[in-house]
């Protein structure tokens, strides 16, 4: 990716991107749509031979041979038995029955996590810069389990199972389904097995925001990643005939359009023309004009395709209230701009107010300096429907308008009719934020080879930040006018800060047995527990354990019923990984309507590796709302080990 490393504070030769750290071998496995092996981001120039511990391989298949792997791309496998058993044989005119990526998604995510440095990367001149994966010297193993209609759970399991056997260190999964109890969630079960043997598993939170309780991949051993905007944008100015202008977003880099007639709905075609669905636009009405298309029913770039087919000169893509003010940039096949819901309403009002509406679009290219990060509206939200006792998502990373590698035979709009070919593409989703964190986990893994997966997760969570580049609280594009600021149910612990995470001071460690105890506290049956434990597991005395006791680096507090003075006690243990002889004092931001007491309020460590415990008591003072948020931070010198508190009634 270009720019997001800089946005995350990664700089060549310094800290995590120091040559010594980057020289260590870390293998990132990506379960996705495969990979385009010839891409320059996967070249292996200067890379040492494959480590002897690696047991993976390069599977042959359609247009994929062993020679496609090298010292950078060290593994490539394809899993399609499950997919074909449900959907039927893969149509080889649209996909490769091999690890080769026909869609682009897997190539994009793999390069985001660990793609090699590429100079002068850009899309049509936009987002130009030096592209690099977050851990750009890592080895990559691509496990293709996603095909044109989706990813079969049996194939995903096979991919995780094989990746673990092959010897990956980090697994990146930018996919998911609907949230369900962990014992029925195949990704949760398989990732537990992977975590158990030291593989860090990072998953996307989902794109179902801003509705509440939409977050996916919520098992506590998974790193669940939300998506944010960086301060880089691709603005397009839409000027209406009445003189009003609005800022939208576009990946079109050509000259802007002059003032042209504007058509919409009935003035553009038949029923469905307002959405620009296939065959709805009338060439006679549309030719040479700018067409307004509402979001929904068909793809965003597909609408532009319809406008172009009908002879349109441009498109205004209007968000509905559902998408709100989200400004995702797409590689449209004609001059086009996305406008937020409020601008969209103004445009429609204008069109209805005059007989000859007109508009022009001016493209501003790549612009930096917006307030950032901002949480994407689409990013799925907590609280988790499955595990109320853990805040999900865990952290946020860049996931909007991300430039990364793209296959040579796939168009940037993902439309068949689009014959443009690019080396890099700009796309958005929690799919894009997830591999950022996977790469960062790989970086931390090379700095701290002895850290557990939970320790890496804790470091990324407790050092995440919640103030933007203007020192104001991080905003939420999907937030209401009442609460435009993001909460822990949108960004988890906050936005990742990898350099701080490499030296977090304290970590909240969790062992496999702790997770099993947590499952016991959810009243799992012995059969359900056996799915995770691999056999019989005897739960501790139920009264001795409750879900809030899991040593998680955040606090989800659920008061059942709005009862005054209801009290809940949580326990946590922190391991000193900073300096010996240090004293931490607690600092609490109390959530509204909650009294928080920490015992002891001071933790004094004598040595590195020492573990100290503390108790937190939350007392409900009757909340005015259904939820409130705060934080608990252990502070010692340069260290601030922060845990969010999310309270629900």
């Amino acid at each position: 990716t270009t720019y997001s490393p800089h946005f995350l504070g990664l700089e060549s030769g310094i800290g995590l991107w120091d040559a010594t750290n980057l020289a260590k071998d870390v293998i990132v496995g990506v379960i996705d749509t495969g990979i385009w092996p010839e891409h320059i981001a996967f070249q292996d120039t200067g890379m040492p031979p494959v480590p002897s511990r690696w047991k993976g391989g390069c599977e042959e298949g359609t247009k994929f041979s062993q020679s496609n792997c090298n010292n950078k791309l060290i593994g490539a496998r394809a899993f399609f038995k499950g997919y074909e058993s449900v959907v039927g044989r893969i149509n080889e005119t649209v996909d490769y029955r091999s690890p080769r990526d026909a869609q682009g998604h897997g190539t994009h995510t793999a390069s985001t996590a660990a793609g090699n440095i590429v100079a002068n990367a850009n899309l049509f001149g936009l987002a130009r810069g030096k592209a690099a994966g977050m851990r750009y010297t890592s080895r990559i193993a691509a496990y293709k389990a996603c095909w044109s209609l989706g990813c079969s759970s049996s194939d995903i399991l096979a991919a995780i199972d094989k990746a673990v056997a092959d010897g990956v260190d980090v697994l990146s999964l930018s996919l998911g389904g609907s949230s369900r109890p962990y014992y029925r969630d195949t990704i949760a079960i398989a990732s537990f097995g992977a975590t158990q043997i030291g593989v860090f598993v990072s998953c996307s939170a989902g794109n179902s925001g801003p509705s509440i309780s939409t977050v996916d991949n919520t098992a506590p051993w998974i790193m669940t990643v939300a998506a944010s905007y960086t301060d880089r944008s691709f603005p397009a100015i839409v000027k209406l005939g009445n003189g009003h202008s609005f800022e939208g977003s576009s990946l079109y880099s050509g000259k802007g359009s002059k003032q042209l007639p504007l058509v919409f709905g009935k003035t553009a075609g038949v029923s469905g023309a307002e959405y620009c669905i296939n065959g709805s636009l009338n060439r006679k009405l549309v030719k040479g004009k700018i067409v307004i298309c509402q979001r929904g029913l068909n793809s965003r770039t597909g609408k532009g395709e319809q406008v172009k087919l009908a002879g349109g000169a441009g498109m205004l893509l209007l968000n509905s209230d559902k998408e709100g003010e989200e400004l995702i940039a797409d590689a449209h096949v004609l001059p086009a701009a996305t406008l937020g819901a409020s601008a969209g309403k103004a445009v429609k009002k204008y069109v209805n107010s005059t007989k000859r509406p007109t508009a022009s679009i001016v493209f501003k290219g790549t612009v930096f300096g917006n307030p950032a990060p901002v949480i994407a509206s689409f990013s799925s939200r907590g609280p988790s429907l499955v595990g109320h006792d853990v805040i999900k998502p865990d952290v946020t990373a860049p996931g909007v308008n991300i430039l990364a590698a793209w296959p040579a035979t796939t168009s940037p709009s993902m439309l068949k009719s689009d014959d443009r070919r690019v080396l890099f593409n700009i796309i958005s989703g929690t799919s894009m934020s997830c591999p950022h964190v996977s790469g960062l986990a790989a970086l931390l893994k090379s700095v701290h080879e002895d850290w557990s997966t939970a320790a890496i997760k804790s470091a990324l969570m407790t050092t995440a930040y919640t103030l933007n580049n203007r020192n104001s609280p991080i905003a939420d594009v999907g937030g209401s006018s009442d609460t435009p600021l993001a909460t822990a149910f949108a960004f988890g612990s906050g936005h990742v800060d990898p350099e701080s995470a490499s030296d977090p001071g304290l970590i909240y460690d969790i062992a496999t047995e702790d997770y099993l105890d947590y499952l016991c506290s959810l009243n799992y049956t012995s059969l359900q527990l056996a799915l995770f434990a691999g056999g019989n597991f005897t739960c501790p005395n139920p009264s001795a354990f409750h879900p809030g006791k899991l040593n998680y680096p955040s606090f989800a507090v659920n008061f059942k019923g709005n009862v005054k003075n209801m009290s809940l006690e949580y326990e946590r243990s922190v391991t000193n990984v900073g300096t010996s002889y240090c004293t931490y004092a607690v600092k609490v931001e109390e959530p509204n309507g909650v009294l928080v007491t920490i015992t002891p309020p001071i933790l004094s460590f004598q040595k590195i590796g020492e573990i100290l415990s503390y108790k937190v008591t939350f007392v409900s003072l009757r909340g005015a709302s259904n939820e409130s948020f705060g934080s608990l931070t252990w502070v010692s010198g340069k260290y601030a080990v922060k845990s969010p508190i999310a309270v629900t009634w």
Partner: protein
Amino acid sequence: SIGKQTTYVIHMDKSKIAANHSPGSVRQFYEAVIDSINKFSSQQEDQEQETTPPQILYAYENAISGFSAKLSTKQLKSLETVDGFLSATPDELLTLH
């Protein structure tokens, strides 16, 4: 219909499976399990009903313990009686994010 097969992810108890197969032969073990339940379920089917043998898609032995297979409802019922069976989840399509 009774004979129609669906793909399931079958979770098995690792500790019980380990006792019943030699190292490196997990797939053969599951195939033997499947053969046995197929014979049993075939006996249960109506004579007119054509029974398709179950097919193992994958054997899982690292991150989880179990396998995926195409099974009829009757074959699944038979499998549920096998020692070490934990759960069966119908295969489903997940989506990219």
